[in-house]
């Protein structure tokens, strides 16, 4: 039987719409389910008190602080190295063996399951460097984990900056460094920020890698050398050990809200930075 092109066109349109719709529905279903279950748990006390009784009672303040600190350490360490590598790959070297090796390494790293990073972090940072279970060990491990993401997105962002900007900057007597910092970087910052935000998202959500490196202490961390427990870790433990499903949902809901806030704030910062030129 022959299908007329008009029918095929209609069928394609319906299928494409349906797949897009399905994705949105699934995403919304998960988010709404967690928010409905979790938001009623969120209260002032939940936000400000540290967990008591293994997390059955009290709040989750120390895990919020732990999450933010581990993430901050990871991002502060990974961003300069990642962006630096991206600039090396795009501006300082020609395509060749070295770039292929770096790119292959970065791609391989991004395919490794996070528990392997956890194991590496445990052996290297916790045991070998004697950093112990700490925010620093966790942050360093996550930094290694998100490095490939930051390198790849930054590299793409830098590559899309028009060659003309570079040429103009050089023709006005700019050195390579001036050209990179004043002409290329401001144009690439939006794309670089996307990579960093993706990295933040992965850090905030990570469980396996931090459980092995940051510990699972419930008290408020005193410094980056203290052990801590992140929110993702906390609700994993709460749910798995059957300590409190209510608190687990509350923590999960808060985590979703936190990720949302980080995204909005990061976007605002970038817009503010970029808005001047466009």
């Amino acid at each position, binding site marked *: 039987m022959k299908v007329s092109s008009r029918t095929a066109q209609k069928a394609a349109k319906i299928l494409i719409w349906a797949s897009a719709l399905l994705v949105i529905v699934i995403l919304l279903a998960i988010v709404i389910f967690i928010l409905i279950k979790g938001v009623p748990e969120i209260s002032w006390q939940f936000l400000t008190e540290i967990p008591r009784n293994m997390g059955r009672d009290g709040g989750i303040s120390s895990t919020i602080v732990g999450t933010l600190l581990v993430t901050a350490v990871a991002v502060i360490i990974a961003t300069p190295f990642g962006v630096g590598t991206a600039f090396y790959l795009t501006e300082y070297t020609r395509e060749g063996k070295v770039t292929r090796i770096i790119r292959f390494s970065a791609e391989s790293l991004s395919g490794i399951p996070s528990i392997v990073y956890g194991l590496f972090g445990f052996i290297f940072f916790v045991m070998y460097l004697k950093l112990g279970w700490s925010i620093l060990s966790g942050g360093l491990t996550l930094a290694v984990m998100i490095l490939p993401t930051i390198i790849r997105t930054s590299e793409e962002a830098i590559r899309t900056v028009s060659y003309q900007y570079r*040429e103009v900057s*050089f023709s006005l*007597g700019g050195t390579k460094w001036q050209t990179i910092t004043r*002409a290329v970087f401001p144009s690439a910052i939006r794309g670089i920020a996307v990579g960093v935000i993706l990295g933040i998202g992965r850090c905030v959500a990570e469980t396996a890698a931090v459980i092995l490196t940051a510990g699972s202490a419930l008290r408020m961390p005193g410094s980056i050398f203290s052990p801590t427990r992140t929110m993702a870790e906390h609700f994993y433990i709460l749910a798995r050990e059957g300590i409190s499903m209510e608190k687990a949902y509350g923590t999960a809901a808060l985590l979703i809200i936190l990720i949302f806030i980080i995204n909005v704030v990061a976007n605002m910062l970038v817009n503010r930075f970029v808005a001047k*030129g466009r």
Partner: protein
Amino acid sequence: MIQQSKIVINNLNFYYQKKQAIRDFSLEIPGNEILAVFGPANSGTTTLLRTLNRLCDLIPGTHMEGEILLDGKNIFAPDISVTELRRKIGMVFDVPTPLPMSIFDNIAYGPRLSGKKTKASLTDDVERALHMAALWDEVKDRLHTPAMRLSGGQQQRLCIARVLALEPEVILLDRPCSALDPVSTAKIEESLKQLKEQFTIIIAPHNVQQAGRIADRVAFMLMGSLIEQGITAEVFENPKDKRTSDYITGRFG
């Protein structure tokens, strides 16, 4: 004679990998004149302009032979600072290339690179450069709006102003009007005629007529070689080489 020439090019050869773009090119360029280097596509005019401020250095796999003297000093000598050379020999490209920042920041980009910081001196530079490029009246009230919002002709005059802000000695223009309408083109040609009082201008015009309108001297290139050069009127009215007259009269190209 040599002392009077701003730029002297001696036996220049330029290669992209194996392909030769400029062949045994020699030319003396006097100061405070407009020189139009013209020829059909792939005749080497763009490459020639780009060797003059060493933008060609940026392309991997190129090499050159011969010398280019600016005020008697070889620009390829090892003690020449390329960044300083490019400040002395400014370049305007074939499509307008504003940077994604404000009008003010675009013009101040060059002076800031050389370490100028104070707001007052930058403001002076920007205003002077915009006046010289005949753009001041059109943009004086919106210096801090994005340069991308200007029209194509305004953008190109902005690019000229950006070069002028560096107080260069030579200005290179590579088909600066190829993306512009006739009115904008006329404005740019008018300002170039004013600017030659203070600068040496070398332009690759986007057609023969433009060379005739603005240039004091012309040089005709074909396949990377200099075919003929001289005072504009002489070359246009009395070309010595048949290829020159064929090109000027529109028999090819």
